[in-house]
Protein backbone atom coordinates (compact mmCIF):
# COMPACT_ATOMS: atom_id res chain seq x y z
CA UNK A 1 0.00 0.00 0.00
CA UNK A 2 2.76 2.38 0.95
CA UNK A 3 4.51 1.43 -2.27
CA UNK A 4 1.37 2.27 -4.22
CA UNK A 5 1.14 5.73 -2.68
CA UNK A 6 4.85 6.24 -3.30
CA UNK A 7 4.67 5.27 -6.96
CA UNK A 8 1.58 7.41 -7.39
CA UNK A 9 3.37 10.38 -5.91
CA UNK A 10 6.42 9.93 -8.16
CA UNK A 11 4.23 9.75 -11.23
CA UNK A 12 2.32 12.87 -10.20
CA UNK A 13 5.53 14.82 -9.75
CA UNK A 14 7.07 13.48 -12.92
CA UNK A 15 4.04 14.33 -15.05
CA UNK A 16 4.09 17.85 -13.68
CA UNK A 17 7.72 18.29 -14.49
CA UNK A 18 7.53 16.59 -17.85
CA UNK A 19 4.71 18.74 -19.12
CA UNK A 20 6.57 21.77 -18.03
CA UNK A 21 5.25 25.19 -17.34
CA UNK A 22 2.59 26.12 -19.89
CA UNK A 23 3.54 29.76 -19.64
CA UNK A 24 7.15 28.97 -20.47
CA UNK A 25 6.09 26.49 -23.11
CA UNK A 26 3.95 29.13 -24.73
CA UNK A 27 6.99 31.39 -24.97
CA UNK A 28 9.18 28.64 -26.34
CA UNK A 29 6.49 27.49 -28.73
CA UNK A 30 7.19 23.86 -27.92
CA UNK A 31 6.62 21.48 -25.04
CA UNK A 32 9.60 21.07 -22.80
CA UNK A 33 10.07 19.63 -19.34
CA UNK A 34 10.40 22.08 -16.49
CA UNK A 35 14.12 22.37 -15.78
CA UNK A 36 14.17 25.48 -13.66
CA UNK A 37 16.18 24.94 -10.51
CA UNK A 38 17.35 21.50 -11.53
CA UNK A 39 20.75 20.14 -12.33
CA UNK A 40 20.73 19.35 -16.00
CA UNK A 41 22.73 16.23 -15.18
CA UNK A 42 19.74 14.76 -13.32
CA UNK A 43 17.00 16.01 -15.61
CA UNK A 44 13.32 16.09 -14.82
CA UNK A 45 12.76 12.41 -14.24
CA UNK A 46 15.50 11.74 -11.73
CA UNK A 47 14.79 14.99 -9.96
CA UNK A 48 11.15 13.97 -9.54
CA UNK A 49 12.16 10.60 -8.16
CA UNK A 50 14.63 12.17 -5.79
CA UNK A 51 12.26 14.85 -4.55
CA UNK A 52 9.54 12.32 -3.80
CA UNK A 53 11.96 10.01 -2.07
CA UNK A 54 13.76 12.60 -0.02
CA UNK A 55 10.56 14.04 1.43
CA UNK A 56 9.08 10.62 1.88
CA UNK A 57 12.01 9.24 3.79
CA UNK A 58 12.75 12.29 5.89
CA UNK A 59 16.13 12.41 4.29
CA UNK A 60 16.31 16.09 3.71
CA UNK A 61 18.97 16.10 1.02
CA UNK A 62 17.93 17.75 -2.21
CA UNK A 63 19.27 17.56 -5.68
CA UNK A 64 16.99 20.20 -7.07
CA UNK A 65 15.15 23.20 -5.75
CA UNK A 66 11.65 22.12 -4.75
CA UNK A 67 10.60 25.74 -4.95
CA UNK A 68 10.93 25.54 -8.69
CA UNK A 69 8.94 22.38 -9.13
CA UNK A 70 5.60 22.58 -10.82
CA UNK A 71 2.62 22.55 -8.39
CA UNK A 72 2.34 18.79 -8.76
CA UNK A 73 5.76 18.46 -7.17
CA UNK A 74 4.80 20.82 -4.37
CA UNK A 75 1.66 18.82 -3.75
CA UNK A 76 3.54 15.56 -3.53
CA UNK A 77 6.41 16.74 -1.40
CA UNK A 78 4.01 18.41 1.01
CA UNK A 79 1.72 15.39 1.18
CA UNK A 80 4.69 13.18 1.92
CA UNK A 81 5.57 15.21 4.92
CA UNK A 82 1.98 15.63 6.08
CA UNK A 83 1.37 11.92 6.15
CA UNK A 84 4.84 10.83 7.24
CA UNK A 85 4.15 7.26 6.33
CA UNK A 86 5.46 6.89 2.77
CA UNK A 87 8.48 4.84 3.77
CA UNK A 88 9.10 7.28 6.53
CA UNK A 89 12.51 8.18 7.79
CA UNK A 90 14.60 6.09 10.10
CA UNK A 91 11.86 4.19 11.87
CA UNK A 92 9.37 6.96 12.43
CA UNK A 93 7.51 6.09 9.24
CA UNK A 94 6.81 2.61 10.50
CA UNK A 95 5.82 4.03 13.85
CA UNK A 96 3.38 6.44 12.27
CA UNK A 97 2.00 3.68 10.12
CA UNK A 98 1.41 1.66 13.27
CA UNK A 99 -0.44 4.54 14.84
CA UNK A 100 -2.65 4.85 11.75
CA UNK A 101 -3.23 1.09 11.80
CA UNK A 102 -4.26 1.34 15.42
CA UNK A 103 -6.83 3.98 14.62
CA UNK A 104 -8.06 2.03 11.61
CA UNK A 105 -8.53 -0.99 13.85
CA UNK A 106 -10.31 1.09 16.43
CA UNK A 107 -12.85 2.58 14.04
CA UNK A 108 -13.51 -0.38 11.81
CA UNK A 109 -12.77 -3.09 14.36
CA UNK A 110 -16.05 -2.34 16.08
CA UNK A 111 -17.82 -3.43 12.93
CA UNK A 112 -16.95 -7.06 13.52
CA UNK A 113 -18.84 -6.92 16.80
CA UNK A 114 -15.99 -6.96 19.25
CA UNK A 115 -14.24 -4.22 21.14
CA UNK A 116 -11.22 -3.47 18.99
CA UNK A 117 -7.94 -5.26 19.45
CA UNK A 118 -4.64 -4.82 17.63
CA UNK A 119 -1.88 -7.43 17.62
CA UNK A 120 -3.99 -9.37 20.10
CA UNK A 121 -4.29 -6.50 22.54
CA UNK A 122 -7.36 -4.53 23.42
CA UNK A 123 -7.42 -0.91 22.36
CA UNK A 124 -8.82 1.18 25.16
CA UNK A 125 -9.02 4.81 26.09
CA UNK A 126 -5.32 5.19 26.85
CA UNK A 127 -4.21 3.84 23.48
CA UNK A 128 -6.70 5.98 21.60
CA UNK A 129 -5.59 9.08 23.46
CA UNK A 130 -1.94 8.42 22.67
CA UNK A 131 -2.40 7.39 19.06
CA UNK A 132 -4.83 10.10 18.09
CA UNK A 133 -2.87 12.73 19.93
CA UNK A 134 0.29 11.52 18.33
CA UNK A 135 -0.64 11.56 14.71
CA UNK A 136 -3.77 13.59 14.46
CA UNK A 137 -3.21 16.53 16.71
CA UNK A 138 0.51 17.28 17.03
CA UNK A 139 1.27 17.50 13.35
CA UNK A 140 -1.41 20.06 12.48
CA UNK A 141 -0.49 22.10 15.54
CA UNK A 142 3.18 22.10 14.60
CA UNK A 143 2.56 22.98 10.98
CA UNK A 144 -0.63 24.94 10.72
CA UNK A 145 -0.47 27.25 13.71
CA UNK A 146 2.99 28.76 13.05
CA UNK A 147 2.19 28.72 9.34
CA UNK A 148 -0.96 30.69 9.94
CA UNK A 149 0.85 33.18 12.17
CA UNK A 150 3.57 33.67 9.58
CA UNK A 151 1.04 34.20 6.83
CA UNK A 152 -1.01 36.57 8.94
CA UNK A 153 2.00 38.87 8.96
CA UNK A 154 3.65 38.05 5.67
CA UNK A 155 5.72 41.20 5.41
CA UNK A 156 7.04 41.37 8.95
CA UNK A 157 7.71 37.67 9.45
CA UNK A 158 7.61 35.51 6.40
CA UNK A 159 9.84 37.11 3.82
CA UNK A 160 8.28 35.24 0.95
CA UNK A 161 9.86 35.50 -2.48
CA UNK A 162 6.83 34.40 -4.54
CA UNK A 163 3.63 35.89 -3.10
CA UNK A 164 0.33 34.17 -3.74
CA UNK A 165 -0.49 30.50 -3.65
CA UNK A 166 3.11 29.54 -4.18
CA UNK A 167 4.19 31.62 -1.21
CA UNK A 168 1.74 29.74 0.92
CA UNK A 169 3.34 26.50 -0.19
CA UNK A 170 6.75 27.89 0.70
CA UNK A 171 5.74 28.71 4.25
CA UNK A 172 3.85 25.51 4.89
CA UNK A 173 6.66 23.45 3.42
CA UNK A 174 9.08 25.01 5.83
CA UNK A 175 7.03 23.96 8.85
CA UNK A 176 6.08 20.60 7.46
CA UNK A 177 9.74 19.90 6.85
CA UNK A 178 10.60 20.90 10.39
CA UNK A 179 7.77 18.97 12.02
CA UNK A 180 8.35 15.86 9.95
CA UNK A 181 12.05 15.78 10.74
CA UNK A 182 12.86 16.26 7.11
CA UNK A 183 15.15 19.21 7.01
CA UNK A 184 14.87 19.83 3.32
CA UNK A 185 13.79 23.26 2.22
CA UNK A 186 11.35 24.41 -0.37
CA UNK A 187 13.53 27.51 -0.30
CA UNK A 188 12.67 30.91 -1.54
CA UNK A 189 12.13 32.25 1.97
CA UNK A 190 14.13 34.95 3.68
CA UNK A 191 14.99 32.54 6.43
CA UNK A 192 18.74 32.57 6.61
CA UNK A 193 20.62 34.47 9.23
CA UNK A 194 22.58 37.11 7.40
CA UNK A 195 26.29 37.18 8.08
CA UNK A 196 27.52 39.79 10.56
CA UNK A 197 29.14 41.58 7.68
CA UNK A 198 25.84 41.89 5.90
CA UNK A 199 24.20 43.27 9.02
CA UNK A 200 26.99 45.75 9.29
CA UNK A 201 26.25 46.57 5.69
CA UNK A 202 22.70 47.42 6.67
CA UNK A 203 20.86 44.20 5.86
CA UNK A 204 17.47 44.12 7.55
CA UNK A 205 16.32 40.52 7.28
CA UNK A 206 17.23 39.72 10.88
CA UNK A 207 13.66 39.94 12.05
CA UNK A 208 12.35 37.34 9.63
CA UNK A 209 15.33 35.07 10.21
CA UNK A 210 14.81 35.20 13.94
CA UNK A 211 11.12 34.34 13.52
CA UNK A 212 11.90 31.43 11.25
CA UNK A 213 14.59 30.04 13.48
CA UNK A 214 12.41 30.19 16.59
CA UNK A 215 9.17 29.01 15.05
CA UNK A 216 10.70 26.10 13.19
CA UNK A 217 12.43 25.17 16.43
CA UNK A 218 9.02 24.89 18.01
CA UNK A 219 7.70 22.79 15.12
CA UNK A 220 10.77 20.64 15.15
CA UNK A 221 10.65 19.93 18.85
CA UNK A 222 6.90 19.42 18.95
CA UNK A 223 6.84 17.40 15.76
CA UNK A 224 9.65 15.15 16.90
CA UNK A 225 9.56 14.64 20.63
CA UNK A 226 5.85 14.62 21.43
CA UNK A 227 5.12 11.78 18.98
CA UNK A 228 8.19 9.84 20.08
CA UNK A 229 7.19 10.10 23.73
CA UNK A 230 3.61 9.16 22.88
CA UNK A 231 4.78 6.17 20.86
CA UNK A 232 6.96 4.91 23.68
CA UNK A 233 4.07 5.24 26.12
CA UNK A 234 1.83 3.47 23.64
CA UNK A 235 4.26 0.59 23.25
CA UNK A 236 4.64 0.39 27.00
CA UNK A 237 0.89 0.24 27.61
CA UNK A 238 0.34 -2.29 24.82
CA UNK A 239 3.10 -4.55 26.10
CA UNK A 240 1.54 -4.75 29.53
CA UNK A 241 -1.81 -6.04 28.25
CA UNK A 242 -2.73 -9.63 28.31
CA UNK A 243 -2.91 -10.93 24.77
CA UNK A 244 -6.33 -12.00 23.54
CA UNK A 245 -6.37 -15.30 21.66
CA UNK A 246 -7.08 -15.27 17.95
CA UNK A 247 -10.41 -16.74 16.87
CA UNK A 248 -12.49 -16.59 13.74
CA UNK A 249 -14.31 -13.72 15.42
CA UNK A 250 -11.16 -11.64 15.55
CA UNK A 251 -10.49 -8.90 13.06
CA UNK A 252 -7.59 -9.95 10.86
CA UNK A 253 -5.21 -7.11 10.10
CA UNK A 254 -3.12 -9.00 7.57
CA UNK A 255 -5.58 -9.02 4.69
CA UNK A 256 -5.82 -6.95 1.55
CA UNK A 257 -9.20 -5.68 2.68
CA UNK A 258 -7.79 -4.27 5.86
CA UNK A 259 -4.91 -2.65 3.98
CA UNK A 260 -7.48 -0.85 1.88
CA UNK A 261 -9.34 0.27 4.99
CA UNK A 262 -6.13 1.62 6.49
CA UNK A 263 -5.47 3.56 3.30
CA UNK A 264 -8.96 5.01 3.60
CA UNK A 265 -8.42 6.01 7.23
CA UNK A 266 -5.08 7.64 6.33
CA UNK A 267 -6.82 9.49 3.54
CA UNK A 268 -9.64 10.78 5.72
CA UNK A 269 -7.87 11.41 8.99
CA UNK A 270 -4.43 12.39 7.74
CA UNK A 271 -4.78 13.79 4.28
CA UNK A 272 -8.07 15.61 4.68
CA UNK A 273 -6.63 17.54 7.60
CA UNK A 274 -4.22 19.19 5.26
CA UNK A 275 -6.45 19.26 2.25
CA UNK A 276 -7.53 22.90 2.68
CA UNK A 277 -3.87 23.91 2.79
CA UNK A 278 -3.06 21.91 -0.29
CA UNK A 279 -6.13 23.38 -1.95
CA UNK A 280 -5.01 26.91 -1.22
CA UNK A 281 -1.38 26.17 -2.01
CA UNK A 282 -0.30 23.85 -4.82
CA UNK A 283 -3.77 23.03 -6.10
CA UNK A 284 -4.83 26.65 -6.42
CA UNK A 285 -1.47 27.38 -7.98
CA UNK A 286 -1.99 24.63 -10.48
CA UNK A 287 -5.32 26.10 -11.57
CA UNK A 288 -3.77 29.51 -11.66
CA UNK A 289 -1.02 28.34 -13.98
CA UNK A 290 -3.48 26.34 -16.00
CA UNK A 291 -5.56 29.43 -16.54
CA UNK A 292 -2.48 31.32 -17.59
CA UNK A 293 -2.51 33.74 -14.67
CA UNK A 294 0.81 32.58 -13.25
Amino acid at each position, binding site marked *: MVLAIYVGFIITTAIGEYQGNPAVNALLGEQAPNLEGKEVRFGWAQSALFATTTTGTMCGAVNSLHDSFMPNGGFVTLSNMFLQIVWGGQGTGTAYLFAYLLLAVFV*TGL*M*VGRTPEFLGRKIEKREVVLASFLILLVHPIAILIPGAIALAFPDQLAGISNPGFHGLSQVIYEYASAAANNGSGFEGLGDSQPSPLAIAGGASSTATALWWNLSTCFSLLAGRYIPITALLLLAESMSRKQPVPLT*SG*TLRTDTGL*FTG*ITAGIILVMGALTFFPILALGPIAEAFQIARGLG
Partner: protein
Amino acid sequence: MQLKSPRSAIISALIYNALIIPALIPLALKGVQFRPLTANQLLRRNILIFGLGGVIAPFIAIKIIDILIPFA
Protein backbone atom coordinates in the same frame (compact mmCIF):
# COMPACT_ATOMS: atom_id res chain seq x y z
CA MET B 1 -19.11 18.73 -7.79
CA GLN B 2 -20.65 21.30 -10.13
CA LEU B 3 -23.00 22.68 -7.55
CA LYS B 4 -25.01 25.73 -8.42
CA SER B 5 -23.07 28.25 -6.39
CA PRO B 6 -20.74 28.46 -3.43
CA ARG B 7 -23.64 29.50 -1.22
CA SER B 8 -25.80 26.65 -2.40
CA ALA B 9 -22.91 24.23 -1.87
CA ILE B 10 -22.48 25.25 1.76
CA ILE B 11 -26.19 25.20 2.51
CA SER B 12 -26.58 21.80 0.83
CA ALA B 13 -23.70 20.29 2.77
CA LEU B 14 -25.10 21.61 6.04
CA ILE B 15 -28.64 20.46 5.30
CA TYR B 16 -27.26 17.02 4.52
CA ASN B 17 -25.28 17.13 7.73
CA ALA B 18 -28.39 17.93 9.76
CA LEU B 19 -30.78 15.56 8.03
CA ILE B 20 -28.51 12.53 8.19
CA ILE B 21 -28.92 12.45 11.98
CA PRO B 22 -32.70 11.84 12.09
CA ALA B 23 -32.32 9.62 9.04
CA LEU B 24 -30.04 7.35 11.01
CA ILE B 25 -32.05 7.34 14.26
CA PRO B 26 -33.98 4.18 13.35
CA LEU B 27 -30.74 2.41 12.55
CA ALA B 28 -29.15 3.57 15.79
CA LEU B 29 -32.13 2.38 17.83
CA LYS B 30 -32.69 -0.95 16.14
CA GLY B 31 -29.07 -1.71 15.51
CA VAL B 32 -27.39 -2.85 12.36
CA GLN B 33 -28.75 -6.14 11.15
CA PHE B 34 -26.62 -8.87 12.59
CA ARG B 35 -25.52 -11.91 10.69
CA PRO B 36 -23.51 -14.69 12.24
CA LEU B 37 -20.50 -14.47 9.97
CA THR B 38 -16.78 -14.61 10.55
CA ALA B 39 -15.07 -11.37 11.39
CA ASN B 40 -13.69 -10.89 7.90
CA GLN B 41 -17.01 -11.49 6.18
CA LEU B 42 -18.67 -9.08 8.59
CA LEU B 43 -15.99 -6.48 8.00
CA ARG B 44 -16.21 -6.76 4.23
CA ARG B 45 -19.97 -6.45 4.35
CA ASN B 46 -20.06 -3.51 6.72
CA ILE B 47 -17.20 -1.65 5.06
CA LEU B 48 -19.00 -1.99 1.78
CA ILE B 49 -22.25 -0.64 3.19
CA PHE B 50 -21.06 1.99 5.62
CA GLY B 51 -17.57 2.82 4.38
CA LEU B 52 -18.13 2.95 0.67
CA GLY B 53 -21.75 3.96 1.19
CA GLY B 54 -20.54 6.70 3.49
CA VAL B 55 -18.29 8.05 0.76
CA ILE B 56 -20.81 7.88 -2.05
CA ALA B 57 -24.13 8.69 -0.34
CA PRO B 58 -23.33 12.29 0.62
CA PHE B 59 -22.10 13.10 -2.91
CA ILE B 60 -25.47 12.06 -4.26
CA ALA B 61 -27.47 13.55 -1.41
CA ILE B 62 -25.69 16.91 -1.49
CA LYS B 63 -26.11 17.08 -5.24
CA ILE B 64 -29.83 16.39 -4.93
CA ILE B 65 -30.28 18.96 -2.15
CA ASP B 66 -28.35 21.43 -4.26
CA ILE B 67 -30.78 20.91 -7.13
CA LEU B 68 -33.80 21.12 -4.83
CA ILE B 69 -33.04 24.27 -2.87
CA PRO B 70 -34.64 27.23 -4.59
CA PHE B 71 -31.98 29.90 -4.70
CA ALA B 72 -28.78 30.07 -6.63
